[in-house]
């Protein structure tokens, strides 16, 4: 038994090495990979005076369903679609995973939607199916977290990426007293928006006024409350001299604040980042959190709906410079790479937090 086993293993190993040697003589590697492919940007002409299509079927596919932030976003979308006499649908995975989004995209293609609004968990993984959707005539509006730019028609960005990164760096520095160790508690490692903001954050830290700050770690809570809670716990265990935790995700900041406010670190470690007023109110009142920022997520969904309907009506095609009207938000112009920016972020603290309800 043992000798036959060994013979089997050896022959398998020999076969494998033969295959490897043969294959090593040629082969497609990452560097050979020709860029993009798939449906490019639409070349059709936009007709800004085209009538707005009625009954547009738009489906929202946020990063995940059980996320209060996404709920507010898509809620805004529903309001907009009601105004536009469109049909609203919400689907999404319960875990922020890209493969789950792909199967929902496939289902939406099958159900012949007109527009898909997606907040991508991974900019590349959803690309093939998004392009398949587009070649079936479905318009794709990315919001919040972008997909690769050759896979979607427009992208609704909540604020400029630079603006968010700068705001985060400023809050972190103010709260840490200008110097010391700080850490970031992010969402999932591949999330486009998170990585873009963190990149700007890092760039900001190279500026002289932030020289005293030392970013010791970027932890990932996967936008899962329990994991974020445990990651916050782990950060403090590994870096007891931490001055501030910056969480550019509403799930992360809520979990971190909850952990800190019930621990010995309350008042010693600052928690800041992007959070919703309702989730953060209790921690601002009890002193755990001094300041954090956000924008109105409902406006993102609202704007995405208007953009989607404008695309479906042929009024815009996603090219820079085109404009469209977005209901109560007013007129918007498409920027470079199909990006549409909502507006600047708002900073919340004890003085204004009670004015907001979301």
């Amino acid at each position, binding site marked *: 038994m043992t000798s036959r086993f060994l013979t089997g293993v050896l022959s398998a190993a020999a076969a494998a090495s033969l295959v490897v040697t043969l294959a090593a003589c040629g082969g497609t590697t990452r560097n050979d990979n020709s860029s993009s492919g798939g449906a490019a940007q639409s070349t059709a002409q936009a007709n800004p005076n085209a009538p707005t299509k009625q009954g547009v079927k738009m489906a929202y596919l946020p990063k995940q369903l059980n996320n209060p932030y996404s709920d507010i976003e898509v809620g805004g979308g529903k309001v907009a679609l009601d105004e536009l006499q469109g049909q609203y649908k919400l689907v999404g995975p*319960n875990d922020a995973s890209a493969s789950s989004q792909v199967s929902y995209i496939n289902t939406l293609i099958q159900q012949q939607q007109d527009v898909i609004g997606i907040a991508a968990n991974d900019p590349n993984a959803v690309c093939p199916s998004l392009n398949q959707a587009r070649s079936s005539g479905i318009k794709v509006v990315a919001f919040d977290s972008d997909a690769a730019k050759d896979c979607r028609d427009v992208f609704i960005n909540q604020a400029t990426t630079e603006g968010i990164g700068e705001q985060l760096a400023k809050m972190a520095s103010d709260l840490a007293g200008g110097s010391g160790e700080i850490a970031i508690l992010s969402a999932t490692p591949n999330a486009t928006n998170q990585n873009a903001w963190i990149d700007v954050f890092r760039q900001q830290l190279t500026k002289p006024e932030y020289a005293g700050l030392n970013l010791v770690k970027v932890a990932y809570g996967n936008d899962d409350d329990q994991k974020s809670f445990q990651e916050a716990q782990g950060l403090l*265990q*590994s870096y007891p001299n931490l001055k501030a935790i910056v969480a550019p995700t509403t799930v992360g900041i*809520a979990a971190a604040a*909850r952990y800190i406010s019930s621990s*010995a670190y309350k008042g010693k470690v600052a928690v800041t980042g992007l959070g919703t007023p309702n989730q953060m*109110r209790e921690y601002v009142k009890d002193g755990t959190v001094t300041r954090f920022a956000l924008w109105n997520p409902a406006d993102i969904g609202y704007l995405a709906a208007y953009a989607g309907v404008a695309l479906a009506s042929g009024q815009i095609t996603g090219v820079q410079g085109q404009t469209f009207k977005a209901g109560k938000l007013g007129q918007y112009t498409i920027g470079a790479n199909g990006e549409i920016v909502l507006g600047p972020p708002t900073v919340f603290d004890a003085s204004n937090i009670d004015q907001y309800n979301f």
Partner: protein
Amino acid sequence: MNATKVMSPKMGSRTAAPRKFSLGGFFKAREAGIVLALIALVAFTAAQNPRFLSAQSIRDILLGTAILAVLAVGQATVMITRNIDLSVGSVLGLSAFAVGSVLQANQSLPVMVALIVGLAVGAACGLVNGVLVRFGKVPALVVTLGTLYAYRGAAYFWAGGEQINADELPAHFLKFGNSSILGIPWLVVIAAIVLVVAGVVLRNYRAGRELYAMGSSPQAAELAGIKVGRNTIAAFLVSGALAGVAGVLFAARFGTIDAAAGNGYELNVVAAAVVGGVAVFGGSGTVWGAGLGALLLTVIGSSLAVLDINQFWQQAIVGALILLAIGADRLVAVRVAKALKKRDSHV
């Protein structure tokens, strides 16, 4: 055969002392082994980073262990009868969401009521498992695999993607999750009570001994007049009820509940029990061992964070430990079988 009967009293008295020592010694050795491993791990980690032994850190570890320990006690009860319960993670999620919903609607409910609600939900789920195993004659693996899916689906169906946030739960409930009595967190106290009660019943009471007998040899137990069916259902009932209690503890500790709570827990629970000496084949192991297994797994997780080792090693380590534990169990079983054979052969 006759010769054995005639000779056995003498054989029995002659070899009684050494036989008892080796079997009892083995059980003690297993738990002692875990305690040693724990001490070594804690010592090593504390040497690298003294903060590991700070009050906050110990408190966090104990809180983390509490939930896993409660689940492991239930799993051990089932595994001792030569069954397995893979649905505990889903039951925890269902119970946590149920309790959360009830508390969300009735903010003034005392914690005790919450515990009873959770226990009841869990017990109902466990009862279904037990009945299917007993009367449907379906193997526990298949039943609990199916209910793992079914209960999780029911939780998602009910929750519909919603999430109960900490600010929607009553303050006294959350305080219960984080506060202490006499310096020991409430959650740990409850876990300790569960451990002690289960340990005492399984060891000193007839019901407990019957469970061991059923696991060692189901046919012999049946022939000896043990009500195997009733005990099987009872074991699953206990496992479900404890998973329900664990759900309440989870809700109190983390405060934010959605239908995905407890996803994937069953693996850690089975690992805790197996590492703690409860054999998958039934008939051996103690709930103390399971509790120690839970503690060991939680400490490993914390150590990894403190030593700044890639946290991802944790699951791989859990898997390796399971393999090690069952290998050790097998080794001992082989030795015991040899020893028994030697004794009976009286050459």
